[in-house]
């Protein structure tokens, strides 16, 4: 019964947030952020724990895998564009990944964060399913990793487009690459709303960043921390 209620609640809140976000555009009406906030408030209000919500989560995220696979379609449709800007994409991806990890670690060390909090920072820009796998390899706390990754994705989706407007990053290819590299799937979902090119590039960048980081990070962690 709680599961049926949770499923119904999640879908209704999502539809509402989408409509609301289309009418009132603001970082706070970004669908993932707004929906999550409302659902948590409603779950706490009706005394449902996350443990009781979990079966609904399993059901609702069943299609996340196939949806990620579907990213191949915009990548394929924009293959000539991607090939044309391949060099720019590789450089942007590397610079974005390196600067975000290093800046996070430097600030965190200034705050005297423990190793338990430093580890997830190295993979905070990797899409959730990849990050949790890499997390096991580097022996990090999986729920902490998931939290850092999701919050990073939300930050990218909420503020990324406005930040890029501010810094005059207006080329659709550069916008998609940047948000996909830093804010993975949640950022890609936002990029898809902005345009097809942005979405395709973001999806490709997310995949490449995930591959790159999952191969490299386990080996350079001892140097970084």
């Amino acid at each position, binding site marked *: 019964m709680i599961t049926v209620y949770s499923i119904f609640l999640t879908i209704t809140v999502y539809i509402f947030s989408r409509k609301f976000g289309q009418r009132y555009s603001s970082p706070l009406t970004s669908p993932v952020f707004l929906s999550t906030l409302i659902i948590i408030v409603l779950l706490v209000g009706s005394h449902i724990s996350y443990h009781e919500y979990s079966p609904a989560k399993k059901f609702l995220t069943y299609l996340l895998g196939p949806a990620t696979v579907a990213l191949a379609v915009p990548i394929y449709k924009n293959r000539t564009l991607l090939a044309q800007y391949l060099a720019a994409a590789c450089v942007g*991806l590397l610079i974005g990944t390196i600067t975000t990890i290093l800046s996070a670690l430097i600030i965190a060390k200034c705050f005297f964060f423990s190793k338990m909090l430093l580890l997830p920072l190295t993979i905070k820009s990797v899409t959730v399913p990849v990050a949790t796998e890499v997390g096991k390899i580097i022996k990090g706390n999986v729920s902490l990793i998931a939290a850092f990754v999701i919050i990073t994705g939300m930050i990218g989706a909420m503020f990324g487009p406005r930040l890029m407007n501010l810094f005059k990053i207006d080329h659709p290819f550069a916008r998609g690459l940047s948000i996909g590299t830093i804010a993975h799937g949640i950022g890609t979902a936002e990029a898809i709303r902005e345009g097809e090119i942005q979405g395709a590039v973001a999806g490709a960048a997310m995949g490449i960043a995930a591959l790159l980081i999952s191969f490299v990070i386990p080996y350079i962690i001892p140097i970084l921390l």
Partner: protein
Amino acid sequence: MKKVLIFSFQLATLIVIYQMGSLLVRFFHLQVPGNVIGILILLILLWTRVIKVEQIDLAATWLLKHLSFFFIPIAVGLMTLGPMFLNKGILILIVLIISAFIGLISAGKATQSIIMKKEKVKVNYHDHSV
């Protein structure tokens, strides 16, 4: 009715490809997640024209339009981390926000400046040829 059938068939195709990706990962003990392998499989199938874009477009476009939705139930899991965030939450948020901003700006700026250089070279080339 016909559209529903086509949609369901395309959706089933995507599910099968995803499962194939996961199976390959488990079978060969790859350090890469199944969905990334799934993307590669579908790309190869599209490239070799085993699957044509039109044969998958309907379901793929619908799923991608609602990609945000699938992250919401996962994000709801943040509610279990209340105690930790009360303790160090503000500092964690500062780290995550500043580093995300730095990454977004440097990735975007770097990509854009290289694209612009490339396009300028093209324009100059044009000028010379004229």
